[in-house]
């Protein structure tokens, strides 16, 4: 479990993280969302003990990262995939990391196999593509077979094939019950992968909620109804507590769920041609949730870009 307690981080004049608190729940994928410059990478560096918070504390399984004797067995991280010596081979690169973490050398070939780099284990990293570097970074994070994994924008800059591979691999890791903190500046990244999201903007917490709760509670959830008898149906639905708007030949019903609408229609012998519940997109749901939050507007504009 990762806990960030009232953490502030300044780099000179820049306030990178501003009184941020959250806990990453075990066993699920938590999305860490925010526009570029929101403080995601800085927060992750503090989790790993690389940067010191200006104030506040960050703990991994109850301890400061720097006090953990063999941290690679508890938490694995991929921050900057390109951090490597181009002159090393993939095996040499993972070899020195494993040695530093007190991990048996045999594990290196195991993780190379896992990420599909076994064939290029003896090749110099200088010739690797970004996608191969990302796989190598994931392999390094998995060396200690840790329960918790953190990935900083792992799909950034990848081609669709690389993105698909990373997504599948993450889902695979998640299905093993690992705790995953996954950052992104794109909301759309989270819809498929995350169970929970922590949204930050300008270093501050904007939202910390489960994906399901966000989309279920959204006011933009509605039911689309098409009926040849809509004129008769509308007052009945309104009496049942719904709000109804007409939209090119269809009724947009909010306030009651589809089964209730079907029941009303059937009870009055009204024919229905369409009865389809529509969930708000994660993006739209968040827009509501954080309406008026200045920082959050940044999230949206950057995810649209």
């Amino acid at each position: 479990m990762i806990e960030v307690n009232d953490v502030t981080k300044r780099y000179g004049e820049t306030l990178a993280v501003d009184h941020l608190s959250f806990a990453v729940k075990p066993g699920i994928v938590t999305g860490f969302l925010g526009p570029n410059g929101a403080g995601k990478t800085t927060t992750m560096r503090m989790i790993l003990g690389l940067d010191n918070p200006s104030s506040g504390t960050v703990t991994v399984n109850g301890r400061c990262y720097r006090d953990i004797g063999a941290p690679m067995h508890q938490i694995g991280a991929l921050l900057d995939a390109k951090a490597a010596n181009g002159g090393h081979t993939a095996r040499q690169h993972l070899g020195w990391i494993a040695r530093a973490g007190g991990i048996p050398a045999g594990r290196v070939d195991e993780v190379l196999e896992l990420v599909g780099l076994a064939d290029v284990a003896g090749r110099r990293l200088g010739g690797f593509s970004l996608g191969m570097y990302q796989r190598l970074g994931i392999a390094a994070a998995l060396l200690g077979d840790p329960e918790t994994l953190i990935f900083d924008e792992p799909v950034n800059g990848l081609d669709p094939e690389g993105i698909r591979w990373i997504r599948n691999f993450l889902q695979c890791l998640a299905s093993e019950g690992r705790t995953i903190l996954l950052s992104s500046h794109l909301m759309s990244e989270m819809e498929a992968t995350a169970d929970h999201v922590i949204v930050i903007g300008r270093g501050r917490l904007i939202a910390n909620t489960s994906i399901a709760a966000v989309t279920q509670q959204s006011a933009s959830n509605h039911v689309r109804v098409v009926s040849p008898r809509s004129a008769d149906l509308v007052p009945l639905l309104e009496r049942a507590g719904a709000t109804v708007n007409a939209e090119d030949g269809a009724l947009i019903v909010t306030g009651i769920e589809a089964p209730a609408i079907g029941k009303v229609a059937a009870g009055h012998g009204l024919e229905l041609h369409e009865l389809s519940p529509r969930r708000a997109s994660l993006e739209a749901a968040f827009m509501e949730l954080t309406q008026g939050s200045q920082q959050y507007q940044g999230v949206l504009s950057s995810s649209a870009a």
Partner: protein
Amino acid sequence: MTTATISSNSKIATRAATRRTGFIDILASEWSKLATLRATQLTLGLGFLLSVATTAIACIALGTTQDDWSPDFSPVTTSMIGVAFGVIVFTVFGVMAVSREYASGTIRLTLTATPARGRVFLAKFALVGTMLLVAGLASTISMFYAGQALLGAYGMPTASLADPDAARMVLGLGVAMPFFPLIGFAFGVLFRSTAGGITTALGLHWLPQIFGQLVSESFQENVLSLLPSNGMDTMTSGHIQHSPAFPDPMVGAVVAATWFAVIVGAAYLAFVRRDA
């Protein structure tokens, strides 16, 4: 891909999990990181070759142009001419051993694997120092034998390592060889930059050589003698060469050690405390 494949064999995981990362792990990791790089092999090899080649060229040049020898001609000092060039290349090695980690970003991997920063610094320092010591001694001893062989071939006076004055200089220079490269290592940590580290370390090294002859004797005695290179030179060659900038050998040792301790100490503190 099946999900079961991602976890390692649980036996490996449990056995490894009980093992705390120790100093030897860090040292072994640093060794396998540094020694496998072609750049390491090239710089250390180049430092060695350049030292010996410079000495050889100097001895050949002397042998073919000089006919009579002044009584203060020293075959030992002559054969050590290459040290000046070797130390430049070795300093580049010392700086890059650490600045490369900042340039490539691997320092973050290093410190994520072993967050005990004090130990990481000491392991790096000990490893780089040992590699430089071996390279330094190999260079000065090879320079000495190559120099004596060439001087002998031209019928010039030669020396033997059995002579304590010769041994003090040859072994002393070899042991002293890591001094500036390790200061370079420390500047590499402080500046996190190859150019900054090399410039500062070599600047400190060459300062007295550049200005030494231009200033008054009292300035040489009172100011330049307090620079680290003169402190070092006093110990290794003060008994053969004399200069107003060379203090007493004991003072020289204290001067050199103080510089070294202050710069390396500052690098240690920076490494432990600063954001990576």
